[in-house]
């Protein structure tokens, strides 16, 4: 089963939940893979210090122009939705960092003056800690195009056991790429106006993708009641609530898994998994 841990708002506790849930599952003897798709800032490894045993560079296609074949017709620039090419009086200029790799320009070029080349966007890294597999993506610094890297990270992490996918924040392409294909999405939020606003956006996104989902309220004893009210109104199950707890924050800031020092929370993770199984079945 693939469980995606996502949120609209950043900093709600996706990595806290992902890392501790993955730890809990593997400590129960279950085959588990933790897949860190937050490729701009993959932090799960900090809590495990895994042994890295493999990696793969990830490229994406970009066009290159052969000037002598180019007639300057401008069809490539016309089809590009991302302004990655311009045609100036017979000169094609390419901005690789804007290219989304659709190859449309190469297909429409009537004289085959554009050919496919690649640029590196990042790296997939494979690690292991005890029985837990850890896969993460690291986006090249300065790179803006993360979805192709996220796709590769997920391919490497797609094992038979339980797969926990820590998603990037937001509700745009990287988040969608990370949650797509999962069996269940847990939306982590906090009971604040910001948390609620971004939760609504995330709910709309996940509903559009037609995936089963539920909500986790982190730091549930702060803020107001509006997230609870919203979930009730929208009939969204809240299947995990973690109170504001200084010891959890302390553990996180020191790079430690809070389930190890605060084992009384294990029961909540056990209930969480039972709830998820029920929701996936129906």
């Amino acid at each position, binding site marked *: 089963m693939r469980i995606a841990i996502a949120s609209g708002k950043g900093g709600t506790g996706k990595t806290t939940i992902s890392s501790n849930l993955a730890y809990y599952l593997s400590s129960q003897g279950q085959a588990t893979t933790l897949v860190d798709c937050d490729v701009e800032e993959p932090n799960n490894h900090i809590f495990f210090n895994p042994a890295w045993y493999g990696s793969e560079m990830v490229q994406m296609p970009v066009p290159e122009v052969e000037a002598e074949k180019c007639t300057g017709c401008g069809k490539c620039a016309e089809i590009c939705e991302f*302004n*990655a090419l*311009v045609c*100036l*009086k017979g000169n094609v200029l390419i901005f690789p960092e*804007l290219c989304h790799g659709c190859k449309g320009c190469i297909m429409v070029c009537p004289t085959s003056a554009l050919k496919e080349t690649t640029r590196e966007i990042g790296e997939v890294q494979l690690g292991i800690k005890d029985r837990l597999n850890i896969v993460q993506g690291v986006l090249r610094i300065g790179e803006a195009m993360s979805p192709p890297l996220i796709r590769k990270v997920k391919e490497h992490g797609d094992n038979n056991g339980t797969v926990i996918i820590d998603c990037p924040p937001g509700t745009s392409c990287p988040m969608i790429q990370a949650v797509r294909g999962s069996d269940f999405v847990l939306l982590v939020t906090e009971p604040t106006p910001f948390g609620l606003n971004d939760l609504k956006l995330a709910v709309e996104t996940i509903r559009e993708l037609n995936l089963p989902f539920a909500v986790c309220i982190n730091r549930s004893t702060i803020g107001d009641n509006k997230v609870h009210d919203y979930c009730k109104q929208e009939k969204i199950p809240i299947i995990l609530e973690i109170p504001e707890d200084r010891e959890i924050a302390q553990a996180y800031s020191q790079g430690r898994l809070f389930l190890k020092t605060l084992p009384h929370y294990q029961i909540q993770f056990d209930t969480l998994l039972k709830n998820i199984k029920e929701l996936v079945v129906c």
Partner: protein
Amino acid sequence: MKIAISANDSSLESTLDMRFGRAPSFLIYELEQQTYKSIDNTQNLSSAQGAGIQSAQNLVNADVKVLITGNVGPKAFQVLKTAGVDIYLTPQTTIQEAIDNFKAGKLTKSETNNVEGHWV
């Protein structure tokens, strides 16, 4: 010769828009005939990326030889330079003042982009 000025509106009294790629429109001024027309740029104003590149492409397609604006980023600069469009930077004025200052030789030609992308 055609001069383009990044503009907030379509008349000579309008204010110049200090942004190039995301200016709402360009006023295209014919230096010899002293006539002008406005071309809409709202599509680029709201584009997700590459606004400067596409705006530059549009000006090249309109046969513009000189651009007067407030700021130009690196990608727009590269397109304009490749196409041989001269860039003159100005502080905030009206379109008319910018044209007068250009004609009086008070504006200096820019040899590089003066801001990074997404500077606003």
